[in-house]
């Protein structure tokens, strides 16, 4: 299941709901990404996430389907925030369930690389000194290229 939401969500609650739908899986991996309280030594007062529906959702659905082709997954869950997000709040949650752990780890890693570098979002970091649009770092593109 894939959701974009303009409202805060709770990663632990989401993991609980997901675990109720893993149908005897042996392995569950979750990733939660949070707005950091500082970046490059500077305070961060928030993050603004812009999506472009329905292209954003469609792209994530395609990535999740690709993950299910590459690994024997029992279930996946992706939530991504949009709009203004406060420091400490979750931006993104990804969970994967499979019989064995390697598939769950790799699929979660793959989905996060997709979300970081290919998902249709634009991200602005809000700081006391101004707001900055931020793009994926070189390391993000390199991580993402591991799956090509």
């Amino acid at each position, binding site marked *: 299941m894939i959701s974009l939401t303009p409202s805060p969500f709770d990663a632990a609650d989401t993991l609980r709901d997901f675990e109720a739908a893993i149908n005897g899986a042996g392995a569950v991996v979750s990733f939660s990404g949070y707005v950091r309280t500082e970046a490059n030594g500077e305070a961060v007062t928030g993050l603004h996430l812009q999506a472009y529906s329905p292209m954003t959702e469609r792209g994530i659905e395609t990535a999740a389907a690709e993950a299910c082709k590459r690994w024997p997954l029992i279930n996946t869950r992706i939530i991504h925030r949009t709009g203004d997000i406060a420091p400490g709040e979750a931006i993104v949650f990804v969970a994967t369930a499979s019989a064995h752990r390697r598939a769950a780890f790799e699929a979660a890693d793959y989905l996060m690389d997709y979300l970081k570098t290919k998902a249709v979002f634009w991200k*602005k970091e809000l700081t006391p000194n101004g707001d900055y649009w931020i793009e994926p770092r070189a390391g993000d593109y390199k991580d993402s290229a591991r799956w090509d």
Partner: protein
Amino acid sequence: MAQLLFLGKLADLVGAGELSLPLPAEAMDTTALRKWLDTSRDLDGLLLEPTVRIAINNDIVQDPHPIQDADEIAFMPPVGGG
């Protein structure tokens, strides 16, 4: 009227997130539209950058791609969430 969307940082740099305008006769494909908009709004090459992709009605297209009035035409700088 075509609906132009400038997403992410482009909204700040172009000075508008959305513009509704009739497409001029000299800008009936994406390559021509990039040039016409960039020149007429004095954007110094911003919309000519290959990292800025164009989507027509929510599908990314390759330049040059035909466009028409009534299209939603989105200018998309590099993406990334998480």
